[in-house]
Protein backbone atom coordinates (compact mmCIF):
# COMPACT_ATOMS: atom_id res chain seq x y z
CA UNK A 1 0.00 0.00 0.00
CA UNK A 2 1.05 3.55 -0.67
CA UNK A 3 0.70 6.00 2.23
CA UNK A 4 1.05 9.70 1.47
CA UNK A 5 2.48 11.89 4.23
CA UNK A 6 1.74 15.56 3.69
CA UNK A 7 4.66 17.87 4.41
CA UNK A 8 3.69 21.41 5.38
CA UNK A 9 6.29 24.09 6.13
CA UNK A 10 6.85 23.39 9.83
CA UNK A 11 5.74 19.75 9.89
CA UNK A 12 8.19 17.87 12.09
CA UNK A 13 6.71 14.41 12.56
CA UNK A 14 6.59 13.63 8.83
CA UNK A 15 9.78 11.57 8.93
CA UNK A 16 8.58 9.62 11.98
CA UNK A 17 5.45 8.65 10.03
CA UNK A 18 7.46 7.78 6.93
CA UNK A 19 9.78 5.64 9.06
CA UNK A 20 6.91 3.72 10.65
CA UNK A 21 5.20 3.09 7.32
CA UNK A 22 8.32 1.99 5.49
CA UNK A 23 10.45 0.33 8.18
CA UNK A 24 7.83 -1.00 10.59
CA UNK A 25 4.94 -1.73 8.23
CA UNK A 26 7.06 -2.47 5.16
CA UNK A 27 4.82 -0.33 2.98
CA UNK A 28 5.49 2.50 0.59
CA UNK A 29 5.57 6.00 2.12
CA UNK A 30 5.35 8.98 -0.20
CA UNK A 31 6.14 12.46 1.11
CA UNK A 32 3.72 14.95 -0.44
CA UNK A 33 4.80 18.61 -0.43
CA UNK A 34 1.94 20.93 0.51
CA UNK A 35 2.06 22.65 -2.90
CA UNK A 36 0.98 19.46 -4.66
CA UNK A 37 -2.55 19.42 -6.01
CA UNK A 38 -2.97 15.72 -6.68
CA UNK A 39 -2.98 12.65 -4.45
CA UNK A 40 -3.25 10.18 -7.31
CA UNK A 41 -1.95 6.71 -6.59
CA UNK A 42 -2.19 7.01 -2.81
CA UNK A 43 -4.18 4.53 -0.73
CA UNK A 44 -4.22 6.61 2.46
CA UNK A 45 -3.11 10.06 3.55
CA UNK A 46 -1.52 11.18 6.82
CA UNK A 47 -1.30 14.76 8.04
CA UNK A 48 1.59 14.63 10.50
CA UNK A 49 2.34 16.59 13.65
CA UNK A 50 4.45 19.69 13.89
CA UNK A 51 4.02 23.43 13.80
CA UNK A 52 2.78 24.20 10.31
CA UNK A 53 3.33 27.89 9.54
CA UNK A 54 4.71 28.33 13.04
CA UNK A 55 1.21 27.96 14.50
CA UNK A 56 0.71 31.60 13.48
CA UNK A 57 -2.80 33.01 13.90
CA UNK A 58 -4.19 29.66 15.16
CA UNK A 59 -2.87 26.12 14.92
CA UNK A 60 -3.64 24.81 11.44
CA UNK A 61 -5.34 28.04 10.35
CA UNK A 62 -2.97 28.80 7.50
CA UNK A 63 -2.04 25.22 6.53
CA UNK A 64 -5.69 24.51 5.77
CA UNK A 65 -5.35 26.80 2.75
CA UNK A 66 -2.28 25.02 1.37
CA UNK A 67 -2.89 23.88 -2.23
CA UNK A 68 -2.79 20.20 -1.22
CA UNK A 69 -5.77 20.62 1.09
CA UNK A 70 -8.13 20.82 -1.89
CA UNK A 71 -6.88 17.40 -2.94
CA UNK A 72 -7.17 16.09 0.63
CA UNK A 73 -10.81 17.20 0.73
CA UNK A 74 -11.53 15.47 -2.57
CA UNK A 75 -9.67 12.35 -1.41
CA UNK A 76 -11.73 12.29 1.80
CA UNK A 77 -15.03 12.93 0.01
CA UNK A 78 -14.32 9.94 -2.22
CA UNK A 79 -13.94 7.75 0.85
CA UNK A 80 -10.14 7.82 1.14
CA UNK A 81 -8.63 7.23 4.56
CA UNK A 82 -7.20 10.36 6.15
CA UNK A 83 -5.39 10.37 9.49
CA UNK A 84 -4.46 13.64 11.18
CA UNK A 85 -2.04 13.45 14.10
CA UNK A 86 -1.67 16.38 16.51
CA UNK A 87 -1.07 19.39 14.22
CA UNK A 88 -2.62 17.24 11.48
CA UNK A 89 -5.76 16.95 13.64
CA UNK A 90 -5.75 20.72 14.18
CA UNK A 91 -5.52 21.28 10.41
CA UNK A 92 -8.42 18.87 9.76
CA UNK A 93 -10.54 20.84 12.26
CA UNK A 94 -9.68 24.19 10.67
CA UNK A 95 -10.41 22.71 7.24
CA UNK A 96 -13.84 21.58 8.38
CA UNK A 97 -13.08 17.92 7.65
CA UNK A 98 -13.75 17.24 11.32
CA UNK A 99 -16.12 19.18 13.58
CA UNK A 100 -15.02 21.41 16.47
CA UNK A 101 -11.94 23.46 17.31
CA UNK A 102 -8.88 23.43 19.54
CA UNK A 103 -8.36 25.77 22.48
CA UNK A 104 -5.16 26.39 24.44
CA UNK A 105 -4.52 23.66 27.04
CA UNK A 106 -6.43 24.34 30.23
CA UNK A 107 -3.24 24.82 32.26
CA UNK A 108 -1.58 26.74 29.40
CA UNK A 109 1.66 24.74 29.32
CA UNK A 110 2.96 22.67 26.44
CA UNK A 111 2.51 19.06 27.57
CA UNK A 112 4.94 16.41 26.38
CA UNK A 113 4.44 13.09 28.15
CA UNK A 114 2.98 9.62 27.95
CA UNK A 115 -0.75 9.51 28.60
CA UNK A 116 -3.38 6.78 28.36
CA UNK A 117 -6.26 6.68 25.94
CA UNK A 118 -9.21 4.32 25.80
CA UNK A 119 -10.33 2.92 22.46
CA UNK A 120 -14.03 3.82 22.55
CA UNK A 121 -14.82 2.51 19.10
CA UNK A 122 -12.87 -0.41 17.67
CA UNK A 123 -15.11 -0.74 14.63
CA UNK A 124 -13.23 1.81 12.54
CA UNK A 125 -10.55 1.42 9.85
CA UNK A 126 -8.11 3.10 12.25
CA UNK A 127 -8.78 0.90 15.28
CA UNK A 128 -9.93 -2.39 13.76
CA UNK A 129 -7.11 -4.38 15.35
CA UNK A 130 -7.72 -2.89 18.81
CA UNK A 131 -10.08 -4.35 21.38
CA UNK A 132 -13.04 -2.20 22.31
CA UNK A 133 -12.13 -0.51 25.60
CA UNK A 134 -8.43 -1.26 25.16
CA UNK A 135 -6.09 1.17 26.90
CA UNK A 136 -3.15 2.46 24.86
CA UNK A 137 -0.19 4.32 26.33
CA UNK A 138 0.79 6.97 23.78
CA UNK A 139 2.71 10.25 24.11
CA UNK A 140 1.15 13.67 23.58
CA UNK A 141 3.11 16.82 22.73
CA UNK A 142 0.99 19.92 22.31
CA UNK A 143 -0.07 23.30 23.69
CA UNK A 144 -3.41 23.47 21.89
CA UNK A 145 -5.17 20.16 22.40
CA UNK A 146 -8.14 21.31 24.43
CA UNK A 147 -10.92 20.04 22.17
CA UNK A 148 -14.07 22.14 22.01
CA UNK A 149 -17.32 21.87 20.12
CA UNK A 150 -20.76 23.33 20.69
CA UNK A 151 -23.17 21.13 22.71
CA UNK A 152 -25.17 20.03 19.64
CA UNK A 153 -22.04 18.88 17.80
CA UNK A 154 -20.79 17.10 20.90
CA UNK A 155 -24.09 15.28 21.31
CA UNK A 156 -23.83 14.20 17.68
CA UNK A 157 -20.29 12.88 18.17
CA UNK A 158 -21.45 10.91 21.20
CA UNK A 159 -24.59 9.55 19.54
CA UNK A 160 -22.77 8.43 16.37
CA UNK A 161 -19.81 6.80 18.14
CA UNK A 162 -17.49 9.37 16.54
CA UNK A 163 -15.41 9.75 19.68
CA UNK A 164 -12.74 7.15 19.04
CA UNK A 165 -10.26 7.86 21.86
CA UNK A 166 -10.75 9.33 25.33
CA UNK A 167 -8.06 10.24 27.84
CA UNK A 168 -8.18 7.77 30.72
CA UNK A 169 -6.28 6.40 33.70
CA UNK A 170 -3.86 3.48 33.14
CA UNK A 171 -6.75 1.25 34.26
CA UNK A 172 -9.08 2.69 31.63
CA UNK A 173 -11.24 4.94 33.76
CA UNK A 174 -12.26 8.14 32.01
CA UNK A 175 -11.91 10.73 34.78
CA UNK A 176 -11.31 14.51 34.93
CA UNK A 177 -7.89 13.79 36.51
CA UNK A 178 -6.87 11.71 33.47
CA UNK A 179 -7.68 14.60 31.13
CA UNK A 180 -4.36 16.38 30.46
CA UNK A 181 -5.60 19.43 28.57
CA UNK A 182 -9.22 20.15 29.46
CA UNK A 183 -10.74 18.57 26.33
CA UNK A 184 -14.51 18.29 26.33
CA UNK A 185 -15.62 14.81 27.38
CA UNK A 186 -11.92 13.74 27.62
CA UNK A 187 -11.78 13.67 23.82
CA UNK A 188 -8.38 12.60 22.43
CA UNK A 189 -9.55 11.58 18.94
CA UNK A 190 -12.65 11.79 16.75
CA UNK A 191 -13.72 10.63 13.33
CA UNK A 192 -16.04 12.20 10.78
CA UNK A 193 -19.62 11.00 10.29
CA UNK A 194 -18.61 8.86 7.29
CA UNK A 195 -15.84 7.19 9.29
CA UNK A 196 -12.92 7.65 6.90
CA UNK A 197 -11.27 10.69 8.52
CA UNK A 198 -9.69 10.46 11.98
CA UNK A 199 -7.98 13.13 14.04
CA UNK A 200 -6.06 12.35 17.22
CA UNK A 201 -3.82 14.43 19.47
CA UNK A 202 -1.57 11.56 20.74
CA UNK A 203 1.36 10.51 18.55
CA UNK A 204 1.14 6.82 17.53
CA UNK A 205 4.16 7.24 15.23
CA UNK A 206 6.34 7.90 18.28
CA UNK A 207 5.61 4.55 19.88
CA UNK A 208 5.33 2.01 17.10
CA UNK A 209 8.26 -0.33 17.72
CA UNK A 210 9.71 -2.43 20.53
CA UNK A 211 13.08 -0.72 20.44
CA UNK A 212 11.41 2.45 21.69
CA UNK A 213 9.99 0.60 24.68
CA UNK A 214 6.41 1.00 23.51
CA UNK A 215 4.72 -0.26 20.38
CA UNK A 216 1.10 0.62 21.18
CA UNK A 217 0.95 3.12 18.33
CA UNK A 218 1.70 0.41 15.78
CA UNK A 219 -1.87 -0.86 16.24
CA UNK A 220 -3.24 2.29 14.60
CA UNK A 221 -1.04 1.92 11.51
CA UNK A 222 -1.58 -1.85 11.32
CA UNK A 223 -5.34 -1.29 11.56
CA UNK A 224 -5.18 1.15 8.65
CA UNK A 225 -3.16 -1.32 6.59
CA UNK A 226 -5.54 -4.14 7.44
CA UNK A 227 -8.56 -2.02 6.44
CA UNK A 228 -6.91 -1.03 3.15
CA UNK A 229 -6.08 -4.65 2.31
CA UNK A 230 -9.65 -5.76 3.07
CA UNK A 231 -11.05 -2.93 0.95
CA UNK A 232 -8.81 -3.93 -1.97
CA UNK A 233 -9.83 -7.56 -1.63
CA UNK A 234 -13.48 -6.57 -1.60
CA UNK A 235 -12.96 -4.48 -4.73
CA UNK A 236 -11.30 -7.43 -6.50
CA UNK A 237 -14.07 -9.84 -5.51
CA UNK A 238 -16.76 -7.36 -6.54
Amino acid at each position, binding site marked *: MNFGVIVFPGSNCDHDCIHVISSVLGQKATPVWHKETSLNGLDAVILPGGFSYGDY*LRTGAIARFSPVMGAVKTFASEGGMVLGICNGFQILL*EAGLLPGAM*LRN*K*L*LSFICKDIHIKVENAATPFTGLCESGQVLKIPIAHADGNYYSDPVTLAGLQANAQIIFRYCTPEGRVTPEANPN*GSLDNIAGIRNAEGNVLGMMPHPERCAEDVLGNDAGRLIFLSMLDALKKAKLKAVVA
Partner: protein
Amino acid sequence: MKAKIHITLKSGILDPQGKAIEHALETLGFTSASNVRMGKYVEVDLKETTKDRADAEVKAMCEKLLANTIIEEYRYELAG
Protein backbone atom coordinates in the same frame (compact mmCIF):
# COMPACT_ATOMS: atom_id res chain seq x y z
CA MET B 1 -8.26 52.56 4.38
CA LYS B 2 -7.09 50.75 7.49
CA ALA B 3 -8.95 48.00 9.30
CA LYS B 4 -8.30 47.43 12.99
CA ILE B 5 -9.55 43.98 13.88
CA HIS B 6 -10.02 42.53 17.35
CA ILE B 7 -10.51 38.78 17.84
CA THR B 8 -11.41 37.21 21.17
CA LEU B 9 -12.78 33.90 22.36
CA LYS B 10 -16.56 33.93 22.56
CA SER B 11 -17.96 34.66 25.96
CA GLY B 12 -18.69 31.41 27.74
CA ILE B 13 -15.70 29.66 26.22
CA LEU B 14 -12.89 29.05 28.69
CA ASP B 15 -10.00 31.41 28.07
CA PRO B 16 -7.02 29.91 29.93
CA GLN B 17 -4.73 32.84 29.06
CA GLY B 18 -7.29 35.37 30.26
CA LYS B 19 -7.67 33.41 33.49
CA ALA B 20 -3.90 33.35 34.08
CA ILE B 21 -3.67 37.11 33.49
CA GLU B 22 -6.61 37.66 35.82
CA HIS B 23 -4.88 35.68 38.57
CA ALA B 24 -1.66 37.64 38.03
CA LEU B 25 -3.54 40.94 38.28
CA GLU B 26 -5.20 39.71 41.45
CA THR B 27 -1.80 38.77 42.92
CA LEU B 28 -0.52 42.27 42.10
CA GLY B 29 -3.36 43.78 44.08
CA PHE B 30 -5.63 44.79 41.19
CA THR B 31 -8.62 43.36 42.99
CA SER B 32 -11.17 45.22 40.88
CA ALA B 33 -10.16 43.32 37.72
CA SER B 34 -12.43 40.50 36.57
CA ASN B 35 -13.48 38.69 33.38
CA VAL B 36 -10.11 39.18 31.68
CA ARG B 37 -10.25 38.02 28.06
CA MET B 38 -7.11 37.62 26.00
CA GLY B 39 -7.40 38.27 22.28
CA LYS B 40 -5.62 39.14 19.07
CA TYR B 41 -5.30 42.44 17.27
CA VAL B 42 -4.73 42.58 13.51
CA GLU B 43 -4.19 45.68 11.39
CA VAL B 44 -4.76 45.55 7.65
CA ASP B 45 -4.22 48.26 5.06
CA LEU B 46 -6.82 48.09 2.30
CA LYS B 47 -6.67 49.45 -1.23
CA GLU B 48 -10.44 49.69 -1.12
CA THR B 49 -11.67 53.26 -0.58
CA THR B 50 -15.42 52.69 -0.43
CA LYS B 51 -16.50 52.04 3.13
CA ASP B 52 -19.26 49.55 2.27
CA ARG B 53 -16.96 47.44 0.12
CA ALA B 54 -14.11 47.62 2.62
CA ASP B 55 -16.55 46.50 5.30
CA ALA B 56 -17.63 43.49 3.23
CA GLU B 57 -14.02 42.63 2.47
CA VAL B 58 -12.88 42.73 6.09
CA LYS B 59 -15.90 40.71 7.19
CA ALA B 60 -15.01 38.04 4.62
CA MET B 61 -11.38 38.02 5.82
CA CYS B 62 -12.53 37.49 9.40
CA GLU B 63 -14.98 34.74 8.50
CA LYS B 64 -12.60 32.89 6.22
CA LEU B 65 -9.25 33.17 7.97
CA LEU B 66 -8.73 35.63 10.80
CA ALA B 67 -11.27 34.21 13.25
CA ASN B 68 -12.46 30.67 13.88
CA THR B 69 -16.11 31.41 14.45
CA ILE B 70 -16.67 28.13 16.28
CA ILE B 71 -14.73 29.56 19.22
CA GLU B 72 -14.00 33.19 18.43
CA GLU B 73 -15.83 36.46 17.79
CA TYR B 74 -14.48 39.51 16.06
CA ARG B 75 -15.12 43.23 15.70
CA TYR B 76 -13.35 45.85 13.66
CA GLU B 77 -13.11 49.52 12.91
CA LEU B 78 -12.41 51.05 9.53
CA ALA B 79 -10.56 54.34 9.36
CA GLY B 80 -8.91 56.57 6.78
